């Protein structure tokens, strides 16, 4: 991550002591309010003090007030520097509040046995969920599927690269083709599930099985055998996301100075040689960015699996997300589902860190 030119401001930073004091009072006062509201609600939750609140919303509101006071207090206490902090602080508070707190909460939930629809509430399960996970054949199967789904990105990349090359060639109606190629990305995966998965692939009268029959495939069942079902889902997902990689690669191609490829032609390189030796090496950073971002989206794959196959046949198309979704929907056990999700997150963080380490040399070939 590079930094641009920073502005260096030399300003008179003196802030009157009275304003600083006001700022401190504001922050501390609102924090005190938050603590009081929280404790009152905690007493109510324990059944000691009846205040008549239905939920924890008062605490949430007090928290929001504290967050606003913290931001305003920065300006009061630090003056100009506080105004600069104000650019980043709201987002930081927002992200920390809504990621770190749920993650910590999730860690606690992961070790509990908690059926949300039962009135008994959470029970501490210890390592029970981990034991269950280790023996859960379907979860490991879903993780294995994610490897296959991720490998499919390489094929998507090849297709996207080819299309990007075509779009950057000298063609007419470039804008028309660009818009047309972009369209699949705009469509909701849920709508696509019906439009293609349920309707166009319909065994009896869908247009694609009809075409397949005309081409000589007698029994065009796209979701019957595990291998073909997995392949179908890969293609469906690729159809939605190829435009995404294509446009990232197209931007990369257009950033290559024209004289570079012209120089290659003048030197007598064939089209293939120019691609192999000049274009492709220059495209490595853009390619890796596109593949990494695509991988991030691929690891979230769920919508089309949930709505088209619900993981079937026999878990062949299951993704981790769709598996946890069903696990929760069928048994409403948040504890086990959260543990599976947390374990998935650990795998993702470890493998992404490894991947970034390994690739960092290739991402910045000029520096």
């Amino acid at each position, binding site marked *: 991550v590079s930094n641009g030119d920073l502005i260096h401001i030399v300003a008179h930073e003196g802030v009157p002591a009275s304003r600083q004091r006001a700022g401190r009072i504001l922050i501390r006062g609102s924090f005190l309010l938050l603590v009081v509201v929280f404790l009152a609600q905690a007493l109510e939750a324990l059944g000691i003090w009846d205040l008549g609140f239905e939920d*924890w919303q008062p605490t949430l509101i007090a928290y929001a007030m504290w967050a606003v006071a913290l931001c305003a207090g920065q300006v009061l206490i630090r003056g100009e520097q506080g105004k600069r902090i104000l650019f980043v602080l709201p987002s930081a508070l927002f992200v920390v509040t809504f990621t770190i707190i749920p993650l910590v909460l999730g860690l606690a939930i992961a070790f509990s046995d908690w059926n949300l629809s039962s009135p008994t509430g959470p029970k501490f399960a210890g390592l029970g969920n981990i034991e269950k996970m280790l023996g859960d054949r379907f979860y490991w199967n879903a993780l294995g599927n994610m490897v296959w789904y991720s490998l499919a990105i390489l094929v998507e990349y090849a297709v996207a690269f080819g299309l990007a090359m075509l779009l950057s060639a000298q063609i007419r109606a470039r804008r028309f083709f660009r818009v047309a190629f972009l369209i699949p990305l705009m469509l909701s995966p849920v709508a696509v599930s019906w439009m293609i998965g349920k309707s166009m692939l319909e065994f009896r009268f869908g247009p694609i099985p009809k075409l397949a029959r005309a081409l000589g495939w007698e029994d065009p069942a796209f979701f019957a055998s595990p291998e073909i079902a997995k392949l179908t889902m890969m293609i469906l997902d690729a159809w939605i996301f190829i435009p995404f990689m294509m446009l990232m690669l197209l931007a990369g191609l257009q950033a290559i100075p024209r004289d570079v490829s012209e120089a290659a032609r003048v030197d007598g390189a064939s089209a293939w040689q120019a691609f192999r030796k000049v274009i492709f090496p220059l495209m490595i950073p853009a390619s890796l960015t596109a593949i990494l971002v695509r991988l991030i989206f691929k690891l979230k794959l769920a919508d089309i699996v949930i709505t088209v196959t619900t993981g079937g046949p026999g878990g062949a198309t299951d993704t981790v997300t769709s598996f946890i979704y069903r696990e929760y929907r069928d048994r409403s056990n948040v504890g086990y589902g959260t543990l599976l999700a947390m374990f998935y997150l650990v795998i993702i963080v470890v493998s992404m860190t490894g991947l970034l380490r390994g690739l960092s040399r290739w991402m910045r070939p000029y520096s």
Partner: protein
Amino acid sequence: VTQAIFRDTEADRTYKARWWTSRAVIYAILILWTIVCIFPIYWTATTSFKMLQDVQLGRMIPFVDFQPSWVGWESLGLSPDTIGQVSTPRNEFVSRISNSAIVSFSASALAVFLGSITGYGLSRFGYRFGPMKNADISFFFLSQLILPPVVLALPFLVLYKELGLLDTHVGLVVLYALSVLPIVIWIMRDQFMTIPTELEEAALVDGQGVWGAFARIIVPIALPGMVAAFVLSLVLTWNEYFLASLLTSTDAKTLPVMVASQTGSQGVNWWSMAAISFAMVLPLVIVGVLLERFIIKGMSTGAVK
């Protein structure tokens, strides 16, 4: 009879032939891929006007193969002769589509506001928070991108239940803004880095504050980038299904959740599913056609450094 003085040699002629074949191949692939991209929309749009036997016989071209009828749109209450009457499916549809619109617009606006000021701050000022400097803070925001929604989904379910935010617009807006914020910060930070700092330096010398310089000078220049970030957020949040299906039930249910619940049930007819799917994708297809420039701008971020 005139005689050509310059004649194509053998080499010239093969070169020309090769040029023409390569043109033909390029356009053939382009047109083929266009069909691959567009045909599902054509199929869905026409199917919403087909009677049962037209579907079963696989008729494809309206007015030639089959006589279009309003059957699909009638079942949604959106055909010419049902539009004036009271219709439960239409009310349901309108309520879902307005939920989707409210949630996706608010979440995108929130994310673009937060992302813009953060991207600007990170591109202009040096921060230090403990051991973290600008690059680390940027990385912290970007790293949120790898967090799969499934990790947050169940904790949020528990949290929202306690906070009374289940099945509310606010709950979804917060989560959606959170999920697109890293992308927005990425786009906006890149955008601001391309704007020379001399512009605000001049404004600061003239006595404007940092926020005044940002609002009056930088925002107008960075507006295309903000539109790009907004449109991209809109696409992602409008289409989001997984979190909405877990966190909404009756009041705040969004369009994808409604469509998905009908996909599963066998009772719903083809034509009405086609009509509802088409009605769902149409707004974004229009957005895609009209704002293609901005979407591509947004997605080019990171590819070019």
